[in-house]
């Protein structure tokens, strides 16, 4: 059970160290900084580690141990894992490197490790992982310096160091995270197991992934397709073409990357190009309802920004919808005479709580409008706070997605903080806001389609 890894009642660190710059020291320290369950240190060379009794072997621990983390050299892993099995450990996080990632002999060792893990019915993350984080459980079983802020995004990463960097970055950006999972070599637990687990995990709202390669491709697609939670993924290796000497046109055009894109699309996985986009989309999913359709309204105090947004809508397949005459009348009543009441609505530089409130209300009540993008462009004559207050207030009572883009430097900061407090992530430029909205629309389309479609019949065969 993966719950033994993510929500264990007790944890032993095998290879625990007094030196906090070593993995076995760092991970013990990180664990104890938040985790509420029992923690045991195992190191035959020490009597005490970071103030804890150090056991010679995991078998010497008098209490039950549900999960073990190994930070020991590769040649010792089999022996230790065998002891873990005998002890009744249910979950393993094997930080140790030196397995299939190093070549043939390492691959052989990994096979032996997996058969041992399975012999005892344990589950394992790794080897060669930087660990896992489960924020709602205050569990930091990783070498990431601190727990992320609470949130509903769970991130599966095939690159450990990228996971590390992103974890730190999310803290700085104020992005809340639920779980961070560095998969390592995926020798036992792989993407299929993890997305299934996260699908059933009530604290996960959206699954974000960094993927280099998938082990069980067909099963992964089948599994992903049944998952209703959004999955946003970045898959690297786009530049790789298919093989050179080819027999057919199809063979020369269908590189593995094109096939990945098609497969992800069929499985409802949103493939994005950049790490920014992964989290832009993921944040939108955690804070916004799905739109009913792709009809978008834009309001801005600056024409340029709304044109940029409208152009990006076009590229993303979103429709800049015609507003009803009633909506236009309501907007006309509050904006200056020379401003534009047609979509995109342009307040011609004027900004006030009233203008934004009344216009946004009218736009959201318009039956033609499925989603709204609110843009504020900072100038020396305007104040970022009133429009932010307006949008947050309306957002509380509204069932349509509202995406915010407050552009400008330090002058917008207070406005952005108000947005964040209302679960309105701010997108720094219109294109990012539009792409995040497009992700919501695509996911909604996928859900609508899977109810009726035969995109991938149950009997996949093969």
């Amino acid at each position, binding site marked *: 059970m993966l719950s033994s890894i993510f929500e264990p009642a007790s944890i032993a660190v095998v290879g625990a160290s007094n030196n906090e710059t070593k993995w076995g020291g760092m991970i013990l320290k990180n664990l104890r900084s938040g985790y509420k369950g029992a923690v045991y240190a195992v190191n035959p060379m020490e009597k005490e580690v970071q103030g804890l009794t150090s056991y010679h072997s995991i078998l010497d621990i008098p209490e039950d141990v549900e999960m073990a983390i190994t930070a020991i050299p590769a040649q010792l892993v089999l022996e230790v894992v065998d002891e873990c099995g005998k002890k009744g450990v249910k979950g393993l996080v094997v930080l140790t490197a030196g397995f299939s990632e190093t070549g043939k002999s390492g691959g052989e060792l990994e096979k032996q490790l997996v058969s041992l893990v399975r012999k005892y019915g344990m589950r394992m993350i790794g080897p060669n992982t930087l660990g896992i984080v489960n924020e709602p459980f205050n569990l930091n079983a990783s070498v990431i310096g601190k727990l992320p802020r609470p949130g509903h995004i769970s991130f599966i990463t095939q690159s450990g160091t990228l996971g590390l960097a992103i974890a730190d970055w999310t803290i700085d950006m104020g992005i809340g995270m639920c779980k961070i999972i560095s998969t390592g070599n995926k020798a036992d637990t792989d993407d299929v197991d993890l997305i299934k687990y996260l699908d059933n995990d009530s604290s996960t709202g959206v699954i974000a992934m960094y993927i280099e390669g998938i082990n069980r*491709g067909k099963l992964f697609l089948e599994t992903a397709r049944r998952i209703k939670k959004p999955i946003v993924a970045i898959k690297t290796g786009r530049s790789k073409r298919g093989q050179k000497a080819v027999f057919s*046109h199809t063979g020369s055009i269908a590189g593995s990357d094109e*096939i990945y894109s098609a497969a992800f699309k069929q499985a409802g996985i949103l493939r994005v190009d950049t790490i920014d986009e992964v989290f832009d989309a993921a944040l939108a999913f955690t804070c916004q309802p799905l739109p009913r359709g792709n009809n978008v309204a834009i309001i801005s105090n600056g024409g340029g920004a709304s044109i940029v947004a409208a152009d990006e809508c076009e590229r993303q397949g979103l429709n800049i919808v015609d507003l009803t005459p009633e909506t236009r009348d309501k907007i006309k009543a509050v904006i200056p005479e020379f401003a534009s009441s047609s979509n995109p609505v342009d307040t011609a530089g004027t900004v006030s709580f009233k203008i934004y409130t009344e216009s946004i209300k009218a736009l959201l009540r318009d039956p033609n409008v499925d989603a709204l993008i609110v843009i504020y462009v900072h100038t020396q004559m305007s104040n970022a706070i009133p429009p932010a207050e307006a949008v947050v207030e309306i957002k509380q009572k509204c069932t349509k997605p509202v995406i915010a883009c407050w552009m400008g430097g330090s002058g917008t900061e207070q406005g952005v903080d108000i947005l964040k407090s209302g679960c309105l992530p701010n997108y720094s430029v219109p294109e990012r806001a539009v792409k995040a909205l497009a992700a919501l629309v695509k996911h909604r389309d996928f859900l609508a389609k899977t109810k009726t479609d*035969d995109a991938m*019949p149950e009997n996949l065969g093969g």
Partner: protein
Amino acid sequence: MSLVLTEHESKKLLAKYEIAVTKESIAKNADEAYAIASQIGTPVAMKISSPDISHKSDVGGVELNIPASEAKATYDKIISRIKKALPDAKIEGILVQQMAPPGHEIIVGLKKDAQFGHALMFGLGGIFVEVYKDVSFRVAPIGIKEALDMISEIKGYPILKGIRGRKPADIDAIARVLVSVSEMAQKENIIELDINPLIAGETGAIAVDARAMIEE
């Protein structure tokens, strides 16, 4: 081991999955060429059939629009040309086939992929696929709706719907071909397949040329 099928063998495979193919037979000699051409009844295409030759027109192995009365002479002409150009090539005979009907040139392909199994490709054929790579992909198996989506996804879709007085293509027929190809992918152990072109007229779609590589 992989095995490359000739055009005729590839089309027999397609026909097994109810994909329409051109009327055709292999002539072993000039008399047979005449007999087959007469039976088809309209001008024919004549193509060298050899497991050693995959790019038939590059070596002068293709003649088009041949009336039955010229089939014999054309047979001899192609054979002597090939014997001269490729003396070691094993020649099975000449494929005498119905000329392609008018319609839209389409490419339908299949490729076995290590991660996900078989991938299907659809696109407009000829220069469109060569230059613009205006194609769409799906992982097999797919059903008819997914096939229709795949068709409507390419940039050139309006061309198939019929623009500027051009006749539209039978899109449902193309979709059925895609579903059939998806079905044969696994059953026939296909490594790679091109149907190029599949000609889609106002009613129906017919495989005019095909090449397949299968796993033995």
